[in-house]
């Protein structure tokens, strides 16, 4: 899941990027509003993490601009100000959730997962299709109820395909969603991940649509 982090504090930004990376998020990190605008124009993000910061950094106007453009991306705001008025201002400006600094990293991860789930219209943190279930919270996949060990990237590829079951995703689309800027992507990386997934689960789960990409067909059980 690709996340845009807007955080002007270098040390904290670095920590959040590492922490979210550990939880399988692909994090693009920018330090000001201009960079954020550029990033938002260039990519499609599943989530936004926005530090409202202290006087001088106007995160709220960025948020309002986002909503004025009818961009529905879920936004979680980080704030040092915990007064009710500040939180209300953030939520009213279009944020979906907030965390007050200092926060617990695992809570940030969980809240982002919840936001992503709600953003995609899911009720529970489990994706089901045929014999396979994907558990976002524990980041595990099961085949016929038995856990299947997957690497972090394999899990992300599987989750993206499952989430879009019945739709074809191009290699570029998948890459865009699971890799952040500056991450080394081998030209055949997605093919390798898909190959491993077919081997660990079952080959018919992921179909190749030649010239277009991959798809998990909808299966009813």
């Amino acid at each position: 899941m690709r996340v845009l982090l807007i955080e002007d504090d270098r040390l904290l930004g670095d920590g959040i990027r590492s922490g979210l990376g550990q939880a399988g998020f692909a994090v693009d990190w920018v330090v000001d509003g201009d960079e954020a605008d550029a990033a938002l124009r260039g990519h499609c993000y599943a989530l936004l993490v926005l530090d409202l910061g202290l006087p001088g950094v106007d995160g709220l106007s960025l948020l309002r601009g986002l909503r004025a453009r009818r961009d529905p991306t879920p936004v979680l705001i980080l704030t040092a100000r915990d007064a009710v008025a500040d939180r209300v201002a953030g939520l009213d400006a279009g944020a979906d959730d907030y965390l007050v600094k200092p926060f617990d990293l695992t809570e940030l991860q969980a809240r982002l997962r919840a936001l992503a789930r709600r953003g995609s219209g899911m009720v529970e943190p489990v994706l089901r299709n045929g014999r396979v279930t994907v558990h976002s919270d524990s980041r595990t996949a099961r085949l016929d109820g038995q856990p299947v060990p997957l690497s972090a990237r394999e899990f992300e590829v599987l989750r993206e395909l499952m989430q879009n079951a019945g739709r074809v995703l191009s290699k570029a689309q998948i890459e865009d969603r699971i890799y952040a800027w500056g991450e080394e992507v081998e030209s055949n990386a997605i093919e390798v991940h898909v190959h491993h997934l077919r081997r660990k689960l079952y080959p018919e789960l992921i179909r190749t649509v030649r010239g277009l990409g991959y798809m998990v067909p909808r299966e009813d059980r």
Partner: protein
Amino acid sequence: MSGSLRGRLLAVLGGSVLIAWLATAFFTYVDARREIDAMLDSHLVQTAALLQALATEGAPAAAAPPPAAAGGAIAYRIWDGEGALLFASPEAPGGGAVAGFADVAWEGRGWRVYGTDAPPRVEVAQSHDVRRQLAGSVASHLLHPLAFAIPLLALVIWGAVNWGLRPLTAIARQVQHRNPANLEPLDGDSVPRETQPLVKALNRLFGQVVDLLERERRFTADAAHELRTPLAAIATHAQVALAAPDDAEARRAMHSVLRGTSRATRLVEQLLVLARLDPGGEETAFDGRVCLAEAVRGVVGEMGPLAVERGIDLGIAELDEAQVTGDPGLVAVLLRNLVDNAIRYTPPGGRVDVTVRRAAGVELRVEDDGPGIAPNLRRRVLDRFFRVLGSGQEGSGLGLSIAARIAERHGAVLSLSDAAAGRGLAVTVRFPAT
């Protein structure tokens, strides 16, 4: 001034009443003495005439009863035509006969004596005591009412003072029943004119306390919020370290934890300096002498390693051996903040110059060739917690405001300008001449 208002009023009013009354009594006494003298003198003359008439008729003087006079007995002596003493009443003063009025002392008593000129000579005398007693009793009658008047006056004053102080008591009660958070002004319209200065002064004080509290509250809130970001960074990196799949990532995260800790420490230190600079009360003047050149050498030496690490050419451009009045510790903090800022915000390869010059007073200058600060932001960078955006530095936002505050405490003026080289920032602190 202390003591009871009531006591003071009683002393002043009671005292003046007493003095006025005593003066009246004294003058009445003097007046009465004069009148009594005149009356009794004429009485003496009449008595003498009567006795003379009796003596001329040859009636035995001894047989005549001693004539009573108002206020006491009259003593007398009678002589015959040849000057021989015919008769003297027992207490009559002796000595030679007098003619006309005379005051005579005889055997320790004063007498008023009147003698006739023509023979047979008659002399009548009356004791002074009698006259004094008469006048005294007149005056003492005047003094009696004082015994009642003084206690009555005290009572009236007590009541009047209570009545007069009622508005003050009401204010006292209002203030007493307040909780410390209630610093609303007192109602100044319902009090008498005399108490209005007090109410106004109290209200002014309340206003100042409100401002002070508000400043403190805002500062504490800002400080707490400022600390949250480094704390969040520390917590995040610590959790990253705990969840790290390999040692290299864990070590990297732990280094970040340390960086966050030193940042929070620095922020706390800066806050403590500010707290010490802002006692919220009166400010004591410094009386120490600080050798500015010595302080500059110390701080530049101390910051040398940081400058080298960041690739900054830090040096002293000009150093007059000047002294200023002040606190050596605070002057060092001022210098350290200015030099630290210059090093931090100047890109590697830059240059930072420190100058101490004797001008009208003493001028301290720290100049860099970094990006400088836009003129419209120069006022704001002196505000607490203000940071220039995009500087990429993790400052506390307090360095310059602390420096400005220390300068202010020393009667010095801190100003920001373009560096002489045309780019970069120059911070100038002008100390007053000593």
